């Protein structure tokens, strides 16, 4: 039986080894770091992917599907990577090479390393169910922690959005709402409670979010959105806006500003038993004015306070909006761009209609005629 030293010598003799300079000259190579997680966390060679030695056989094919791609393997000193190179050769990779001296020599030669942004053990535990999903993983969770999502309204639609975005670890949530918590809100606005009756909704929502997840920073705007304040609010750099407004002037105002600024809006609206959800992504699909060029006359536009709403309906529609917002923040899946989803809670029926971009849209069309804020109250009262 060979000793470890003998086995290492034998393996090193069988595989191709290159020094740092030689490895850098290997055109089109994929660099694979085979060290443990804690070693990777201390710094890695820029551009490398991380596949710990123990998972190499099972994961290499999904990360490097083309076996003719040269693969530079490295560890700390060049021992584990020699065994890894042998394994890849056995798997049919045409040119696996082991970096002599590993990352230790790499650093000694003055080459750059990158220190990854990683999740603390506490965050790993909190977001473990996200980390298990390949489409999210640590990279996606870090994206969410960096994301900034603005909620327009902390009411029926904003409530589930606030809770689920906070639980998901969206690092910065903004909330715009001028109202205070009223008893009649508690039938559906689950971010508020008896304890916050009579307090501003933005403060009540902030309190609930902070009790749920201390990773989330909350910025509150206790005001109604107007053409006077919208620019300063959007200047805070929101990646996505979740629109749960309760009136047409605000929706048209938000639309125009978001088109001009290129900020995606996740739209939701509800009435009695029915809801609508869509995503307006500037440059990539229609805007709200393409869908509804004009607001309906007042008699066709009752609000929920006039017409009522099933308590769970904003929970469903607001959750659908949250799903879209998270997808946009993560850059995964197919958002509801150019598609309007209609939900009927009585029939439990989802129906989808297409929404096309209107080339003559006054805001996002080929020859826009509206290029600055208009009087939205007047526009909607016509």
């Amino acid at each position, binding site marked *: 039986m060979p000793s470890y030293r003998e086995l290492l010598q034998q393996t090193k003799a069988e595989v191709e080894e290159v020094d740092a300079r030689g490895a850098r000259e290997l055109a089109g190579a994929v660099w694979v770091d085979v060290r443990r997680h804690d070693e990777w966390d201390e710094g890695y060679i820029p551009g490398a992917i991380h596949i710990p030695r123990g998972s190499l056989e099972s994961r290499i094919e999904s990360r490097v599907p083309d076996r003719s791609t040269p693969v530079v393997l490295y560890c700390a000193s060049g021992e584990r990577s020699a065994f890894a190179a042998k394994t890849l050769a056995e798997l049919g990779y045409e040119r696996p090479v082991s970096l002599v001296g590993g990352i230790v020599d790499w650093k000694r030669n003055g080459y750059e390393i990158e220190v990854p942004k990683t999740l603390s053990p506490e965050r790993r535990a909190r977001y473990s169910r996200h980390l298990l999903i390949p489409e999210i993983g640590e990279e996606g969770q870090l994206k969410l922690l960096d994301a900034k999502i603005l909620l327009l309204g902390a009411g029926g639609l904003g409530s589930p959005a606030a809770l689920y975005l906070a639980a998901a670890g969206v690092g910065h949530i903004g909330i715009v709402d001028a109202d205070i918590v009223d008893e009649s809100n508690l039938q559906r606005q689950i971010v508020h409670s008896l304890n916050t009756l009579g307090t501003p909704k933005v403060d009540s929502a902030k309190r609930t979010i902070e009790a749920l997840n201390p990773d989330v920073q909350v910025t509150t705007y206790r005001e109604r959105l107007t053409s006077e304040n919208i620019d300063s609010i959007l200047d805070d750099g929101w990646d996505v806006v979740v629109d749960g407004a*309760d009136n047409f002037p605000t929706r048209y105002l938000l639309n125009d500003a978001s088109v001009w600024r290129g900020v995606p809006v996740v739209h939701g609206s509800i009435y009695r038993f029915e809801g609508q959800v869509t995503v307006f992504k500037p440059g990539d699909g229609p805007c709200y004015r393409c869908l509804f060029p004009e607001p309906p006359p007042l008699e066709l536009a009752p609000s929920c306070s006039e017409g009522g709403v099933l308590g769970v309906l904003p929970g469903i529609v607001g959750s659908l909006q949250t799903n879209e917002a998270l997808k946009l923040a993560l850059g995964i899946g197919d958002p509801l761009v150019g598609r309007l989803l209609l939900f009927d809670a009585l029939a439990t029926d989802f129906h989808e209609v297409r929404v096309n971009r209107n080339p003559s849209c006054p805001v996002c069309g080929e020859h826009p005629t509206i290029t600055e804020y208009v009087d939205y109250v007047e526009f909607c009262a016509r």
Partner: protein
Amino acid sequence: MTVIRVPPVLREEAGGARQVEASGSTVRELLEDIVGRLPALGNKVYDGSDIRPYVNVYVDGEDVRTSGGLDAPVRENATVVLLPAMAGGER
């Protein structure tokens, strides 16, 4: 007969019905038939020559304004949806 889904804000005009039936081989014929059967509903959607600007009419998931207009054919058993913008969310 084609089944037309009526949105909640227009149900009063349809006598409370969630859906109504109408016949017609084009969008125009269909809308004129609705005006004849249920004038209160029809007039909210159709002004006698065009679809009102604040209502969208979808035939098989496509907005008729951007897919053939009033003369677009409507097949038997098509799904027709009338849809004005909804007022809100709510706070």
